[in-house]
């Protein structure tokens, strides 16, 4: 089985637009939405849930106030400023600041703090018009997004093995941090979707740096390439210089937003230039995956 992840560094360059189109064009695959804190692929593929499960991401401290003597040892030791104190309500854990490291639980002389399993979100296996999809929803403001991404990818892999499918396509999150790392480590190929803006280019270089750090082969595609042709040329030069294959240049076209409003992938909605470029791009990516 081969695994492809679509990332960008900068948000909003068109990862999900490209992923949704590939989802329609690819055969014998499983899809995984690895953007677990702002997932959007489901808005296009309108999945129907087959199964739904809690995501137990870790443990969080809980204070037993019958045992707590307000000695303040937890507050003194916590490195995350996650213990609040007021004379009225005593010591309280600020769950937004808490890193769930358990130091307070180990340090409490009264053993008044225990670590409790926490549900950080839910994950789903769903059926879509283009095959099965694994996706998730991280609870509002919750931790452990990297772990949830790893879980989504693992479940998608198991599903692919079970159904004897040869490809897994992951829609990645923006950035270069923990969830992105979890979405790309060990994959066969990464497709970086960028745009010809200084921000897009700056972020592409950083996310390409991350791919090199983990030694993962990458391809590049430029979205809205005609917005700034000089910058698009700079991206082409960057690709040549770094031996990166540029597999597609998508024009700026309102059809992309129209397709999204109609809840369709661009290749289903229209057969104009954008669709044509994306189809050609998919052929190239497919070839890279099989080589």
């Amino acid at each position, binding site marked *: 089985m081969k695994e492809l992840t679509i990332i960008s*560094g*900068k*948000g*909003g*360059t068109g990862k999900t637009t490209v992923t949704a189109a590939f989802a329609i064009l690819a055969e014998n695959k499983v899809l995984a939405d690895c*953007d*677990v*804190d*702002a*997932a*959007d692929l489901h*808005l296009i593929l309108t999945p129907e849930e087959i199964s739904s499960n809690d995501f137990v991401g*870790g443990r969080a401290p809980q204070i037993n106030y019958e045992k707590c003597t307000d000695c303040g040892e937890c507050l003194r*030791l916590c*490195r*995350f400023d996650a213990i609040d104190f007021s004379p009225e309500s005593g010591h309280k854990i600020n769950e*937004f*600041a808490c*890193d*769930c*490291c*358990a*130091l307070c639980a*180990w*340090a409490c002389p009264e053993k008044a703090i225990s*670590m409790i399993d926490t549900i950080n979100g839910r994950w789903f296996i769903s059926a879509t018009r283009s095959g099965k999809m694994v996706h998730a929803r*991280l609870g*509002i*403001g*919750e*931790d452990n*997004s*990297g772990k949830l991404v790893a879980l989504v990818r693992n479940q998608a892999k198991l599903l692919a093995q079970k159904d004897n499918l040869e490809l897994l396509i992951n829609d990645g*999150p*923006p*950035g270069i*941090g*923990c*969830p992105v*790392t979890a979405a790309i480590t060990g994959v066969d190929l990464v497709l970086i979707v960028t*745009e*010809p*803006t*200084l*921000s897009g280019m*700056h*972020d592409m270089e*950083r*996310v390409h740096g*991350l791919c090199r*750090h*983990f030694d993962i082969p990458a391809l590049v595609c430029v979205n809205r390439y005609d*917005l*700034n042709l000089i*910058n698009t040329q700079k991206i082409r030069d960057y690709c040549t210089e770094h031996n990166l294959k540029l597999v597609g240049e998508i024009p700026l076209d*309102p059809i992309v*937003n129209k397709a*999204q*409003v109609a*809840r369709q992938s661009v290749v289903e909605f229209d057969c104009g230039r954008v669709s044509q470029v994306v189809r050609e791009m998919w052929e190239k990516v497919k070839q890279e995956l099989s080589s």
Partner: protein
Amino acid sequence: MIIAIASGKGGTGKTTIATNLALVAPAAQYLDCDVEEPNGHLFLKPAIDKQTDVTLPIPLINEELCSLCGLCATACEFNAIAVIGKKVMLFPELCHGCGTCMFVCPETAITETGKVIGQLEQGSAKSVTGDKFTFTHGISKIGNPLTPPIIKRAKKLIENERFVILDAPPGTSCPMVQTLIGSDYCIMVTEPTPFGLNDLELAIGVARQLKIPCGIVINRSDSGDQGIKKYCQRENIPILLEIPFDRDLAFAYSKGEAAVNQSPQLRESFQNLHLKIVAEVEK
């Protein structure tokens, strides 16, 4: 006054709003908290005069004192330490720098050392009137997965008497939450598409849990559908500014040029946005 600029969805225009606001607001302080992909400097072109490393305290194990009891490995919630055979293995990229292992070690065999996970760069940029304002951004080192400590360090530089603008990372997980904590107001930048609305609702959910009041800026307001407006009406969230798509402005953006320097009309819009935010915060 601390104002966070967030969005949920990436690419809606957070940095555009944050940088243009910094250019027109008197006595601004701009802090780029999108440390994975900081972009504000591309538009503000600051003069950087100070660079500092951000370090995370990671354990240093003294093998002579270590009895291989394995308590550190048991205590670590992040699986960053394992005892394999006669060796203690450390996985620095999993370490959160919490100090629990050092605390529990019965042999006091663990001390700490700083691991560089990123940088802070401080300097100043020039507003539209030529006044200097404070610029700071955090930059996460490539390969470092843990960004909240860098954001937290950057936020230590907040000067409360200024109009502080925090440019937040996309999403709704720890880095975004870390940015929003302690803000007086949050501007959610969105676009009128199904993706924009879905992610806006999630981001508003975070702000509400943190009890931070919000206002909306709709970017590319003439595209897409009416979903955002209906949502704002239903939820009683003020729309502070709408910016229609303009190819010339998008082109200027692509070259790193700020909108308020391109269009006098937009300069006025951002000055009004600043006044509206101040009024909302003081309400």
